[in-house]
């Protein structure tokens, strides 16, 4: 197991801090239409450094901050944290657990954290470089990707092949 848990707060429909504990073997995420499952997938894509709002179904990155509902007023911060098992040191960091976080404030301020210390996106990318988590599209496949891969209008096939090389 590599990913121990995902913590989502203020990101899209997750107004309150929500913790997904993973483990060995395959985890299935289930629930009715519109409950937030794809938002969880996008949260992981986002914390891994995704920069294009269009892959998160938004026009502007600020739209990923919970914008209010009948049950809760809007919030001013979106935060996602991944906690990774590093006990066999797959990552070049000397801690048994490694946490990666990304924050976006309503005023547009954006922060990345590595083990709770502020850092740059390139530091996160550097840590993940040879881990297989460096490219979000290599780790995440959503339903829309099937059509994109088959249509082959961009160079998605090549980008994925290069990630495997």
């Amino acid at each position: 197991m590599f990913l121990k848990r995902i913590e989502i707060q203020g990101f899209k429909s997750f107004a309150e801090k929500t913790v997904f504990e993973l483990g060995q073997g395959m985890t299935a995420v289930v629930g009715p239409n519109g409950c937030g499952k794809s938002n969880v997938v996008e949260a992981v894509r986002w914390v891994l450094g995704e920069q294009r709002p269009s892959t998160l179904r938004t026009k502007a990155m600020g739209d990923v901050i919970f914008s209010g509902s009948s049950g809760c007023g809007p919030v001013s911060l979106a935060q996602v944290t991944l906690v990774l098992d590093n006990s066999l040191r797959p990552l070049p960091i000397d801690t048994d657990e490694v946490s990666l976080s990304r924050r976006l404030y309503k005023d547009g301020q954006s922060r990345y954290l590595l083990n709770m210390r502020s850092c740059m996106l390139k530091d996160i990318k550097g840590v993940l470089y040879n881990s297989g988590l460096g490219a979000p599209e290599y780790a995440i496949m959503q339903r829309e990707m099937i059509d994109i891969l088959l249509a082959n209008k961009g160079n998605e096939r090549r980008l994925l092949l290069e990630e495997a090389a």
Partner: protein
Amino acid sequence: AKSRFWETWDRVNQHFGETFAQLFPGGKAWLELTGEGSALSRDIEFVVHPPGKRTRPIELLSGGERALTALAFMFALYKEKAGPLCILDEVDAPLDDANTSRFLDMLDSFSKKTQYVVVTHNRFTMSKASRLLGVTMDKGVSKLVSVQLSEGGAQKVS
């Protein structure tokens, strides 16, 4: 870099033939580079033969065949270099029962090297999971709920 590309290319091409045949028993598939220019800039084409059918423009494939082809490609890449984590969002939605079963068998064989998280509405997929994480929506706010699998699908645990 160029010779390394060709070595990877040959291996991934072989993997793609294997993963495709596992998802389409009796079927064949391979990759081709189209057009001109350097190997690193030409387009990658999927040449695909479901069993009993002739190779046709890939647009003619059915919805389920398209999904399986894309999955065969992803699994072929993972045979070359397994990602430690792979999140799949409703990729099983277009598959019939037999193909869902083949997909889940393949997932199972890859899950020694890769930790899979699968978003799904498919009961068969749920039945193969090591755990179910339930999500519900309450007045526009998403929350985690305990669920368990029963006759009617995934049910909330009260």
